[in-house]
């Protein structure tokens, strides 16, 4: 699978003290392009996703492939808590908790009628979304698209299930196929056995972001089950 990343944006919550994140630049979330009456409804998850999507897409009506392992889990967990105590559900929280809410809001705010996908595929969500993005580009459904991945740290009551480091983060990439003679990335599955404690690994989305920021020629992206070689081929 070969693709070009024209530009990208990464946001991580500033208060997180996790080794490996030092190379990622901190930026304030900028949602000045969203009207205040719409901005007030956005959760922290939605805000970080919209920030990165807008940074990369600007006003261009590009298709978006949205990826998240858990979606807006703090919001979903709040709804589940309300159900447990037989409290009434907030209509706004319910409506904005669905997996495609972030891209739905993004399309509405930008009057963007391009195709929007929302994908969840465990701790390999961003890899599956890259494959889906490549398929859409390769079959010429679009010439360029935005891939956005966002996840928040698991709420306290779910942290016993954590199998990787928990980081509030969002990453957006502008993807297209390479033109002849142009530099590009390739991603290939590889055999790789990690000796590290996989619970101490960064999510693949952040491994990918760090490779982009550092312009690393070859990076192994891996989790507890699988590994991929991300290679930059200079033009």
């Amino acid at each position, binding site marked *: 699978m070969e693709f070009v990343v024209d530009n990208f944006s990464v946001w991580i919550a500033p208060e997180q003290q996790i080794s490996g994140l030092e190379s990622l630049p901190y930026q304030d979330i900028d949602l000045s392009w969203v009207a205040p*009456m719409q*901005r*007030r*409804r956005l959760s922290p998850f939605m805000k970080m996703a919209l920030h990165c999507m807008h940074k990369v897409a600007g006003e261009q009506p590009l298709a978006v492939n949205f990826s998240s392992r858990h979606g807006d889990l703090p919001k979903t967990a709040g709804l589940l808590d309300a159900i447990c105590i037989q409290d*009434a559900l*907030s*209509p*706004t929280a319910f*409506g904005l908790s669905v997996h495609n809410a972030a891209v739905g809001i993004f399309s509405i705010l930008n009057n963007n009628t391009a195709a929007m996908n929302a994908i969840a595929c465990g701790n390999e969500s961003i890899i599956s979304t890259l494959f889906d993005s490549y398929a859409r580009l390769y079959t010429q459904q679009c010439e360029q698209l935005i891939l956005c991945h966002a996840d928040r740290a698991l709420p306290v009551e779910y942290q016993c299930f954590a199998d990787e480091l928990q980081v509030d983060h969002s990453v957006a990439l502008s993807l297209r196929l390479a033109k002849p003679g142009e530099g590009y990335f390739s991603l290939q599955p590889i055999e790789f056995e990690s000796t590290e404690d996989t619970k101490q690994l960064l999510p693949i989305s952040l491994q990918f972001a760090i490779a982009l920021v550092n312009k690393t020629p070859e990076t192994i992206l891996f989790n507890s089950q699988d590994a991929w070689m991300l290679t930059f081929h200079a033009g």
Partner: protein
Amino acid sequence: MSELKNKIKLLIISSLDLEDMTVADIENDQPLFVDGLGLDSIDALELGLAIKKEFNVKIDANSEQTKAHFASVDALAEFIENNRS
């Protein structure tokens, strides 16, 4: 009644996350929806839920009169005063 109206205004601000707005910014007779405060149909659902929880008032979503009860803080206060248990 004015205490109730202030409570309603605070509830509107908190339940609808109205950033940068205070009780003083909402007039008692100001329309809450569309041209007035600018609230929309999702806000109506959210506000209905908040009023039900806070004042133990039953709101009939299918009633034609419900729209009139939600017209302004004045109308809401009168409705709550007459219906809370």
